[in-house]
């Protein structure tokens, strides 16, 4: 017989592969968050009249808030189609451990949406006249922060997937929970610009990531069980 057992690792690999296939089959999944990020950031200089100096001051905040919004909005679709077409029920009824599958799903999603945001962020720093010392901490902060934000946003997505109009509700649930990541993330840039040592803030961001990565899947699983009900 051609059937071969693949174990937990193989099964998680299949979930990862499926998510990546989904992302690459509709390139919008990857490109749209990026475009949103760039367009939304460039709205701010249009909305106010600011000197280059002032722009540089608000740059970390604007970039981080927009990244947060982009991550959150891109997460909106994480469970949507699975919910609509019944795949989510299959995942919940699978004998495989849900916890790890959810972790992998969020990770896959971050790889195709969050990571590109991180990569492109220096460009936006340039647009907003971010001082030179700010680029490295901006990148580092986003690299640690966006996966944590993805995990937090996934909780909100899981809680709202059964609801028709979820976009704004998702924001209302997720934004307050994301504030610590935002504060330390944007704070990292400020700290660097003020010439203070970074290690403490980096450690906190790392801790937040670990915390979100381990606890969020539990909340996501519980939320999904409620949603399919």
């Amino acid at each position, binding site marked *: 017989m051609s059937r071969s057992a693949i174990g937990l690792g193989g099964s998680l690999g299949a979930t990862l592969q499926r998510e990546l296939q989904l992302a690459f089959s509709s390139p919008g999944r990857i490109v749209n968050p990026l475009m949103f990020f760039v367009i939304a950031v460039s709205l701010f200089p249009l909305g106010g009249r600011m000197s280059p100096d002032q722009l540089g001051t608000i740059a970390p905040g604007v970039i981080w808030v927009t990244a947060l919004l982009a991550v959150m909005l891109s997460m909106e679709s994480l469970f949507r189609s699975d919910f609509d077409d019944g795949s989510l029920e299959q995942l919940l009824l699978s004998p495989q451990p849900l916890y790890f599958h959810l972790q992998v799903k969020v990770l896959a999603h971050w790889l195709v949406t969050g990571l590109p945001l991180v990569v492109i962020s220096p460009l936006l720093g340039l647009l907003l006249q971010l001082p030179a010392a700010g680029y490295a901490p901006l990148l580092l902060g986003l690299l640690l922060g966006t996966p944590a934000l993805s995990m937090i946003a996934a909780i909100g997505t899981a*809680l709202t997937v059964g609801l028709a109009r979820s976009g704004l509700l998702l924001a209302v*649930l997720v*934004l307050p*929970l994301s*504030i610590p990541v935002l504060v330390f993330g944007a704070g990292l840039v400020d700290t660097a610009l003020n010439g203070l040592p970074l290690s403490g803030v980096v450690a906190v961001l790392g801790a*937040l990531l670990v915390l979100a990565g381990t606890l969020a899947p539990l909340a996501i699983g*519980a939320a999904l069980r*409620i949603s399919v*009900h």
Partner: protein
Amino acid sequence: MWQWLYKLGSPRHFYEMTTGFVPWLTGVSLFLLIVGVVWGLGFAPPDYQMGDSYRILYIHVPTSMGGMGAFVLLAMMAAMHMIWNIKMADIVAKVCAPVGAGYTALGLITGSLWGKPTWGTYWIWEARLTSYLILLFLFLGVMALRAAYDSERSGSKAASVLAIVGVVNVPIIYYSVYWWNTLHQVPSELGRDGSANPPEIFIPALFTGFAVIGLFFLAVILRSRNEILYRERRAQWVQDLLEKELADV
């Protein structure tokens, strides 16, 4: 003690046990409130620094603390509902959210009103104020989520998950905002040295403080009783109660 707690967990017993308790709680709270307000507004001397504006503290401090306490209560009830599936816990969680949100909003409003004479502005982005604003957002999120579900049961479970996640986040938010604030230059820290206050100012504060907290529990209990009647409206004991009430009228 356990017996008593167990009984409280049943909506019917909760309803029956609180029936006698409500008038007492109402009376005591109102008494404390009237004494505290009359004493505080009418007889306590003006503060040597802040003049009369400090009097808003009589409401500000207890409502602020009540709002925070309410979220902890909400999360505890949510956890009990999730883990042991206790109906009564969900009822309390449901009614606790709007009351807590109201207290939080009152704390914010009274604080802002006090801020105007004290700092010259209604709002500053200061650690405690900011984390308190976020607490209001968390309350609103829990309420919005519950309302978004068509099914009562799914809504309550979803709101429970969010309340638990939220309470885990509260200390993190507090420290993050505090940290963020340390690089800020703040116009004025919230002074907390109540010991400097003379007893004429301090004692009425105790009265209003307990009154406001008593009113919190009163609101929660009254709303819970309504909710119990609504949810159990088809149960025999509620029907009996209704008949008795109607007969009395």
